């Protein structure tokens, strides 16, 4: 099997993404297994220049996840910028820009190295090797995933005695059956493309270079926070259509890595030091004899 250096690195990159989420104490072993696993992250490319704001994706998403189905004929909701909620896993917003109205679908970005996953102390947030970031019921409801998400996506059912974290799962249940995510399946404008992330980046680059002037020469999500499963194309600068462009390209789990690496060090060296001091003070006591160890 011919594997180019480039694609190898890509697979490795994807693997490292998962690996960084593995056991922090044994990054090497995890990295090795991830590299041996050739499954590619799947993702979705959103071409905002094609989106007409019909909100079919919202409705089909709600239907798939058994959530209240929004009235998509009601355009008044577009007046204000909306966020996803515990009952709306994806929302379409309208932005008035220098190049006219732009509609942007918003949902979980399915980061390559998600902050929420590394935040979770019971691995209830899980990055599947196929790409989706999903939630499992062993969750404690601590909500640490919420401040740890750069896109503020995980939503908590505050008004339930048995609350869940709700977010886009990239239709994981459908993917398992070999189907496409509901929003992609039902998009009438082909504004959404589902496929391996690597191919989506290629497709996005192709569109940018084959249509000069029609797109910003930037794919949002290619490098943001270490790369995301959702990728966006736009004809206007991304900050004009509700994206945070100040998030940087560092994957969020990296921010806690330094601290976590110091843990085994502290646990080894600190007690050794303390035992040393304890022994030293004891000796001092003996030498001083009658003085009684520095009593004041």
């Amino acid at each position, binding site marked *: 099997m011919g594997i180019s250096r480039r694609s190898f690195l890509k697979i490795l990159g994807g693997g490292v993404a998962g690996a960084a989420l593995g056991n922090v104490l044994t990054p090497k072993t995890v990295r090795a297994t991830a590299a041996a696993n050739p499954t590619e992250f799947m993702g979705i490319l959103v071409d905002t220049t094609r989106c007409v704001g019909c909100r079919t994706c919202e409705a089909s998403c709600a239907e798939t996840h058994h959530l209240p189905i929004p009235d998509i004929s009601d355009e008044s909701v577009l007046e204000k910028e909306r966020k996803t909620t515990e009952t709306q896993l994806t929302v379409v917003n309208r932005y008035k820009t220098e190049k006219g109205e732009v509609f942007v679908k918003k949902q979980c970005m399915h980061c390559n190295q998600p902050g929420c996953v*590394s935040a979770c102390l019971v691995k209830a947030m899980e990055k599947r090797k196929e790409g989706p970031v999903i939630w499992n019921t062993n969750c404690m409801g601590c909500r640490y995933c919420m401040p740890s998400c750069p896109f503020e996506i995980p939503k908590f059912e505050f008004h339930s005695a048995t609350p869940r974290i709700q977010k886009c799962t990239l239709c994981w249940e459908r993917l398992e059956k070999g189907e496409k995510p509901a929003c992609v399946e039902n998009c009438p404008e082909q504004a959404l493309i589902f496929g391996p992330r690597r191919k989506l980046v290629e497709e996005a680059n192709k569109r940018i270079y084959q249509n000069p002037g029609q797109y910003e020469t930037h794919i949002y999500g290619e490098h943001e926070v270490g790369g995301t499963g959702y990728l966006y194309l736009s004809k206007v600068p991304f900050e004009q259509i509700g994206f945070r462009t100040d998030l940087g390209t560092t994957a969020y789990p990296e921010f806690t890595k330094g*601290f976590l690496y110091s843990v085994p060090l502290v646990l080894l060296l600190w007690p050794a030091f303390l035992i040393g001091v304890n022994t030293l003070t004891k000796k001092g006591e003996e030498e001083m004899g009658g003085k009684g160890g520095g*009593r004041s």
Partner: protein
Amino acid sequence: MNETAITPQIKNVKDLWTFIRGELKPRGKIFTTFNVISFPIIVLGAALVLFRLVKGLGAVTNLSQEFPWGIWIGFDVMVGVAFAGGAYILTFVVYILRSEKYHPVVRATVLNGFLAYVFYAGAIFLDLGRWWNIVNPILGNKFGVNSVLFLVSWHFLLYMISLFIEFSPTVAEWLGFKRIRKILASLTVGAVIFGIALSTLHQSGLGALFMMAKDKIHPLWYTEFIPVLFFVSSIFAGLSMVIFEGTISHKVFADQIDQDHHESFDHILIGLGKGCAGALFVYFFMKILILIHGKQWSLLATPMGTWYLIELIGLVLLPCILFLHGVRYENVTVIRMAAILSMLGILINRLNYSVIAYKWYVPFSQRYLPSWMEIVITLAILFTEVWAFRWIVNRMPVVRESPAWATEEETVTKPATIRKGVSQWKVSAM
């Protein structure tokens, strides 16, 4: 009033049961101002806890998708744990550096730390949406080893056990378990060393929780050194709490304290003040270094900048100077004032990370303010802790001297003088 505690003779489970039943009875005046205020709040708090468990977090708290963590995390856990830091500092000074000077306050501090952890773990339990899964990170369903919170949760559990071991000789003295006391006392230094390592990591770990909220915390507060800042600040937070709690305990339990300790207490406070001044200075210096390296001078001119300066100057530098002054002129009143100021500084600092400087860009109308129910439950937890503390101090040799048999060199185990009569089992106090 009787200084010599009467050691109960417990030979079997039935004896133990009778003794504990006797001890459970309230002592002293029931209708004190504190009881009259705290009891209704505890009852109301308990009712609200039930309400929260049935109806969900949203029914009781003002938490939202924007502000998923409120005062139960920002105050109860973050501030409570910082204040409980006194236990690891004092055990370090007394058991590792062997400074006998602070021995009289070490038991109360360890007890205070232990109770703080027990009750703040309780606060976490209330704050967890899916509380029945609280055992998952311990049982391994599943181990999220790359999570800072995983580390913090394990450390909480292990540290509670360490603190209990550190405190356990006191319990053994109360029950009159001589041999068990000896065994438990031999574990103290080990528990102390383990406890200090755990504290270092989870005090800083609480700060590390905010590392991934990089885009949400105001740049004047967000720095890669948050964990170090949390650790250093837990030193003076803990010591200030020892000063504060010690001062109150000293008044409330005055009749249990022997004359020597009464006289040495001011010296202890001055020593603690010295420690606070040092830690505060290190902390202030680090904050300044971080500020200089951040090169975000323009932010200081914003409203958040003012708020930052109030915290830095008014609640870090000022208490530092006051502590120095108090130590220099041996003025205990100034030290107490400084302790209160620095505790206030910790309160503001931890709330800044979790609530105030967190998403500072969200307009005030959409911001999180605790609901009255969150405050009542927090107060109820606090009062229950004080009740537990008082119950223990009134029964076990915490601020009072250990019974004679325990302080005597245990090398020679003398047959204890046999005292008879269940009625005499009550340990002195009140």
